[in-house]
């Protein structure tokens, strides 16, 4: 799973924008996940193969977001 974690430094607007760019999501979906990060501390952004998940984590970290990949249990 690709997870984005909340932090007090990234702007909500910026996080929404990054989700749109990295995943190609519509604004509404990107905002939904951004709010989940903000309100619940984390959001599962994708459930993918290791290779694809690594790719997404790299993309998100390039934008300095706090993103990691975790086991789907």
């Amino acid at each position, binding site marked *: 799973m690709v*997870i984005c*974690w909340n*932090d*007090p*430094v*990234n*702007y909500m*607007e*910026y996080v929404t*924008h990054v989700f749109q*760019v990295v995943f190609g999501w519509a604004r509404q979906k990107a905002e939904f996940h951004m709010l989940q990060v903000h309100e619940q501390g984390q959001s599962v952004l994708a459930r993918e193969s*290791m290779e694809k998940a*690594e790719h997404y*984590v*790299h993309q998100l*970290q*390039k*934008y*300095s977001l*706090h*993103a*990691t*990949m*975790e*086991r789907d249990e």
Partner: protein
Amino acid sequence: MNLIRSTKQQFQFRLGRREKQVLLSLLKRYPCLPAAHQPLSKSGGLPGQEAGQGLLDEALAEQRQDNRRRLQALLADPGRFQEQETGWRLSLSPGDLEWLLQVLNDIRVGSWVLLGSPEKRLVGLDEKTAPHYWAMEMSGQFQMQFLEAMQGPN
């Protein structure tokens, strides 16, 4: 800083003289985030995690070097900033703008890390912390203005 014109190929911003100085001072701080700052996984236990972490660190380091080179080229390009009567006009392609957002956020998040990653607003700044706080706040201001320009009028 104001957006004065945007087309599919280019964004043009008007900056005051002081604003240009601030933007250049900020960009000279890049990179701010410590290398190997981010883990690939929090919980661990992923197959091949060590190798994956190595690849991620390597990719991010490479990215940082590319960004530094691109930043130097941008700052040296005389066509980027054109002097006007009341300040400067900055011309950027949509790709430049997207990339500058990443650079500015590295400066913002990196400055926050240098401040000790505070959870709440800092009070009682001193000589050591004030420059990092300034960089964090100012890079955020530019980021928001760039994002607004990219999204266009609502």
